[in-house]
């Protein structure tokens, strides 16, 4: 039920609903209609007929309702919502980067090519891989690109992909889109790969074992050498879903752990604003034996000269127009160069923050896989199920205290999952504030929690009705 609970904010109208509400404006003295050539002068464009001040207020008010990392703590597990330094934005808006055209000759944009070349080298160093493509537009696109590389490597002969049941949903989706058959294997009691199950599923028809490390319950796989032995023993490739790279920066490298290829989410690990559609960036990093399949063009350096190389016959071809989300690459580059060896401290602080929160919340919420965690951890919101309090209620109640909710109901292997990732950019005071609220909610009356939120511009929305009968578009006729 919508209601006015936020003082001056109140209930927002759609932009179309402002039509005719502010007619007291002074019209411009420019007869635009007379100046436009008639083919471009359409009479019945269905645009909202509103005054400029209404447009500005409408969008300014909308922006004030935004939850963002610039305004609140945002512990959305698996998403690495760290603070994004503003210098990244300045760097990406430098004229030499922002105003170049993707088709201009290589000799006129040497700086941009140099940045891409050096970013690739830095990502190799960070991941322990040998070569990188920066083309994929975000994480899932990176997964798909990596699987296309695997398909090329096996000449389409191996048809299966193995996934643990804790995998991100994008993994089976990418595999299916790429034409593979998906085989799920269960996780063991610790939340890690069940080695006998992997051994049983692995044979010469399996192209790739896709693994997230640390995995989605926030735990580092402890049997990597054995996993690598099993998969490589049957000639398969091991892929690392790099969504959780923030836990490993400068400490351990997927390339050293035995992975053959992986994707990174630059927008997560390397401090780029994301959510709500990006733009993101999902580079794929590979070992030397897979380099020849990387998408084209490749940025190459001869002497001091950078150029684009289209001459790799085994390449899977282009996966993205032009040179990917280039502005995002500039931001990642700025972040990596600003921190340098300090990247190791990022992972250390991210892991420390997560373990501090886990230790502080252990007494208030069940912890199904209770071990030293990596950069995130998973609680269960199941403790008060008999009173009808579920994870979704806890998440809604957090909104009342001004926090973005954690990831809920993922991973699927944890009942009523609440997945919390604080990141390294939050101080102890912020963590303590969130911990205190989580403890408080655990003790609040069931009816109070089930009715949340109370302080947001709109209260509990009917998510079921919205999903069953979505109403996504305003109609003038309606």
């Amino acid at each position: 039920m919508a209601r006015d609970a936020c003082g001056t904010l109140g209930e927002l109208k759609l932009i179309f609903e402002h039509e005719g509400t502010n007619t007291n404006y002074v019209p411009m003295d420019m007869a635009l209609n007379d100046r436009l050539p008639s083919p471009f002068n359409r009479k019945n464009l269905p645009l909202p007929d509103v005054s400029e001040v209404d447009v500005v207020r409408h969008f300014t008010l909308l922006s004030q309702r935004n939850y963002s990392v610039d305004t609140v703590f945002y512990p959305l597990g698996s998403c690495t919502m760290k603070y994004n330094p503003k210098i990244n934005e300045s760097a990406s808006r430098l004229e030499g980067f922002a105003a170049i055209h993707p088709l201009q000759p290589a000799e006129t944009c040497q700086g941009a090519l140099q940045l891409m070349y050096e970013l690739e080298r830095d990502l190799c160093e960070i991941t322990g891989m040998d070569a990188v493509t920066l083309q994929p537009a975000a994480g899932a696109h990176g997964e798909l690109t990596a699987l296309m590389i695997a398909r090329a490597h096996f000449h389409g002969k191996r048809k299966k992909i193995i996934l643990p049941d804790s995998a991100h949903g994008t993994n089976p989706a990418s595999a299916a889109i790429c034409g593979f058959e998906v085989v799920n294997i269960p996780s063991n009691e610790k939340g890690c790969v069940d080695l006998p199950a992997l051994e049983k599923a692995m044979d010469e028809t399996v192209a790739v074992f896709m693994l997230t490390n640390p995995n989605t319950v926030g735990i580092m796989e402890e049997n990597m050498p054995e996993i690598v032995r099993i998969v490589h023993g049957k000639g398969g490739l091991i892929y690392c879903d790099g969504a959780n790279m923030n836990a490993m920066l400068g400490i351990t490298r997927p390339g050293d752990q035995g992975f053959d290829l992986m994707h990174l989410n630059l927008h997560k690990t390397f401090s780029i604003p994301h959510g709500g559609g990006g733009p993101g960036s999902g580079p794929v990093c590979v070992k030397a034996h897979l380099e020849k399949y990387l998408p084209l063009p490749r940025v190459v350096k001869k002497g001091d000269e950078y150029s684009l190389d289209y001459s790799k016959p085994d390449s899977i071809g282009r996966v993205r127009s032009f040179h990917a989300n280039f502005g995002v690459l500039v931001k990642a580059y700025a972040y990596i160069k600003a921190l340098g060896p300090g990247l190791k401290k990022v992972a250390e602080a991210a892991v420390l923050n997560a373990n501090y929160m886990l230790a502080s919340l252990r007494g208030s919420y069940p912890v199904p896989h209770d071990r030293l965690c990596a950069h995130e951890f998973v609680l269960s919101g199941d403790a008060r199920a008999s009173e009808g309090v579920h994870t979704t209620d806890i998440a809604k109640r957090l909104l009342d205290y001004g926090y973005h909710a954690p990831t809920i109901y993922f991973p699927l292997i944890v009942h009523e999952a609440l997945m919390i990732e604080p990141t390294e950019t939050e101080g102890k005071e912020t963590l303590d504030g969130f911990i205190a609220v989580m403890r408080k909610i655990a003790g609040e009356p069931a009816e109070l929690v089930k009715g949340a939120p109370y302080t947001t511009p709109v209260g509990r929305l009917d998510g079921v009705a919205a999903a069953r009968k979505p109403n996504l578009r305003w109609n003038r006729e309606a």
Partner: protein
Amino acid sequence: MMKFTKEHEWINVEGDIGTVGITDYAQKQLGDIVSVELPKVGAKVKQFGRLALVDSMKASSDVYASVSGEVVAVNDGLSQNPQWVNESAEEKGWFAKIKLENQGELGNLMDKLAYDEFVKGIKH
């Protein structure tokens, strides 16, 4: 006679036709179901292979075929009324009817007693 899978599907066999759906336990775990993607009539399915897809407010889940065979009918109303699965998972919320290829496969399934024990053994 109803039989059950470890993935929480049920099958009710009459002659060589088995009506299939997901169990009441499964719908409770999934919560409010918001859409169901059914197979096409005529589709060939394999035992424990993919049959349908259910989306709930919590997750998107595959539904597997309890037996191998040909889909001879689907519950047409379900696409427009996914709430039937929540209201009546083991009757009105049926998914499809499969013409059994091999009656012997029913031996791979649990009876009601065994399934209830199986569900009791699942810890949260």
